[in-house]
Structure formats: structure tokens, C-alpha cells
């Protein structure tokens, strides 16, 4: 291990924040390097000194003022980004949004339904018209059959296919 690597790991080594294998390597280096050992001892002493000092003379504020600012359990308000908002607001907002989007949708669908009904009625009427037309054509076709020239020829005795 190089001195630089050892030095940069000394604080973590003192704080017990290096892996076991790294700790062994650092310890071996310290055993062999007086310069790094001196750095280790001075950092270790400073850390111990910091640790032995009492905490700053500062007490936590009493809980009362904090408690008075806490939202109560079952409160009609909740915290939203630092603002107290009534609990019904999200449900109300959702209902408003649904209403806002559903009315145009209903209007749209009802007008489409009317249009479809008109189209269906037109389709039925067209179909009926075509059916009537078909019947008319069919009846005319029957008339054509009745006036079949072969039949007429046969009736008149001028049938060109006759083997007479």
C-alpha cells in the first residue's frame, strides 16, 4: 500500500468504516511506515478529543409548540406541500373533473346517437325502396316470360325450330 492511499483511508480506519481486508493492509502499512503512523496517531488523538467533548450547551426546544402545529388525527385537513387543505378537496376536485369531462361526452354521444338513428331510418327506407323496385322488376320479368316469342311462335305455328 502506498502512503497516499493509506493516509486517505486513515479517518475511515479510525471510524471503523473500512473492510477487514483493507484494515489489515492499513495496519501492516502503519507498522512499517513511521510517517503514516504519526498521521494516524494525530488524527486518532483529534478524533478522541472531539469525542470526549460535551455536546454544545443547547437544549432541544420543548415539544409543546411543535405539538400545537401538528395536524390532529381525524382532522378535516391534510398537509399538501406545506398548506393545510380540507380533506374533501381531492374528492370534490375529482367529481368536478368527472362532471366537466362527462357532460361534453354525453352531448357528443347523444348527437351521434341521433345521427345513427337517422342513418338507420334512411337505410331501412332505402332497403324498402329497393325491395319494391325488385318486386316491380320481377313482375315485369314475368311479363316478359309470358310474352316469350318462342311461345308465341309456337302458338302461331311459325316456330323456326320445328322439325315439321
Amino acid at each position, binding site marked *: 500500500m502506498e502512503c497516499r492511499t493509506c493516509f*486517505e*483511508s*486513515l*479517518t*475511515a480506519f*479510525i*471510524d*471503523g*468504516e473500512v473492510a477487514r481486508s483493507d484494515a489489515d493492509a492499513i495496519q501492516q502499512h502503519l507498522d512499517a511506515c513511521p510517517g503514516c503512523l504519526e498521521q494516524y*496517531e*494525530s*488524527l*486518532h*488523538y*483529534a*478524533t*478522541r*478529543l*472531539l*469525542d*470526549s*467533548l*460535551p*455536546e*454544545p*450547551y*443547547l*437544549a*432541544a*426546544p420543548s*415539544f409543546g*409548540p*411543535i*405539538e400545537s*402545529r*401538528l*395536524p390532529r*388525527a*381525524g382532522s378535516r385537513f391534510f*398537509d399538501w406541500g406545506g398548506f393545510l387543505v380540507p380533506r374533501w378537496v381531492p374528492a370534490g376536485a375529482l367529481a368536478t373533473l368527472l362532471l366537466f369531462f362527462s357532460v361534453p361526452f354525453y352531448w357528443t354521444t347523444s348527437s351521434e346517437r341521433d345521427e345513427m338513428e337517422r342513418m338507420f331510418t334512411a337505410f331501412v327506407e332505402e332497403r324498402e325502396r329497393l325491395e319494391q323496385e325488385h318486386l316491380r322488376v320481377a313482375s315485369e320479368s314475368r311479363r316478359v316470360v309470358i310474352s316469350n316469342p318462342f311461345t308465341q311462335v309456337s302458338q302461331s305455328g311459325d316456330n323456326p325450330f320445328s322439325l315439321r
Partner: protein
Amino acid sequence: MTAQSERKRSAQNRISPERLERLVASVKDGDVEAFRQIYDFYGGKIVQYIYRMTGSRPEAEDLTQDTFVQAYRKIGSLKDNRKFQSWLYRIAQNNVYQKYRGKQPHFESINDEEGQELADFQKLATPMKSPEAGVLSGELQEVIQKAIAELPEKYRKVFVLSALHRLSYQEISEIADRSLAAVKSDIHRARVAVRDKIKEYLGENYGMSNLF
């Protein structure tokens, strides 16, 4: 076992992780009494952390109140109850940043009249762990606070959390939102800078630089 690791261990024993998890779960259900118990444990830590970051006692008290009120209101957003500590410190840190955005905190003297009265009382109530700490603690606190104030912001935060609050590097990296390697490097640089200040002070005033 070093003194600081013993202290770290004893501090952790004051509230077990399982108990803290239960308390946090209760707070999520709206239990104010559970929140009061959490405050009893973390209130002092947070006010000291903010004080170290801002250097102002009234600001520290105000921001501590804000921090706990926000923590209560936002506790539902905490997904892993075991991360409560780093989550709480992060709220405190964000409050400090918000308050001092673009401004340099003004560090007041620790040894003002009110602080000195409390200091005297605490000296009577708390036996010092070593003779040199007993002799120097008041002045040394001042030197350390000054050294902390002179640290760049990113070093100041990790120094306070590691050297004074004894948080793990993993927790500090979560609070600072930086990689473990970057946090490790910053902690080392901050510790060396503060050590040099202490060494200089002890050498100039007490001829004790040979201790380092």
C-alpha cells in the same frame, strides 16, 4: 475498542432499531405520543446538528421545530421505517439550505452569557472524560465551532455528522445524497482540516502541539 466507537454503541442502545421502527409505524397511524418519544430522543441531536450548521441558537431552535413538524406531516412518504434517522437529518439539512440559500451563516460565539450559564451548569452535572478535555472544553468548543464555520459547506455537513453525531458513512451518504467514496473522502479532508486547527490552537496557546 476506541472511545468513540463505545460512545457510538451506547448512543445506539438508547433506542433500539426495533423500537424506533415501532414508534415510526405508530406515528404513521397518527400517534402523537409516539412522535413525542421520537422527539425526546432526536430533538437534542437535530437542534445540535442545525446549530453546528448555522451557528445560531435561535435559528437552530426554530428550524428544529420546522423539521419535526415537517417530519410528522410527511412521515407517510417514508417507505422504509429503518431509514428514519437519515430521513430526519435530511429534512433538517434541507431546512438549513432553504433558510441560508445563497447566504453564509453567521456563527455566533458559543460562550455568550446564556451559553456560559448552561455550560457552567453542564460542567457541574457532567464529569469530563479526560483531564485535558476538562481544562480546555469551553475554549476548544469555540475553536471547533470556528473551524467548522470555516469549512466549505460540503465538508462542514459530513464533519458534523461523522465526528460529532457519529453517524455511519452509509447514513451520511444517504443524507448528503452522494456516493460512499465521495463522502469518505470529504470526511477525511474535513477531519484533517479541523485537526490542524485544534493542533494550531493547542500549540499556540498551551504549547501542547506535541500531543499531535
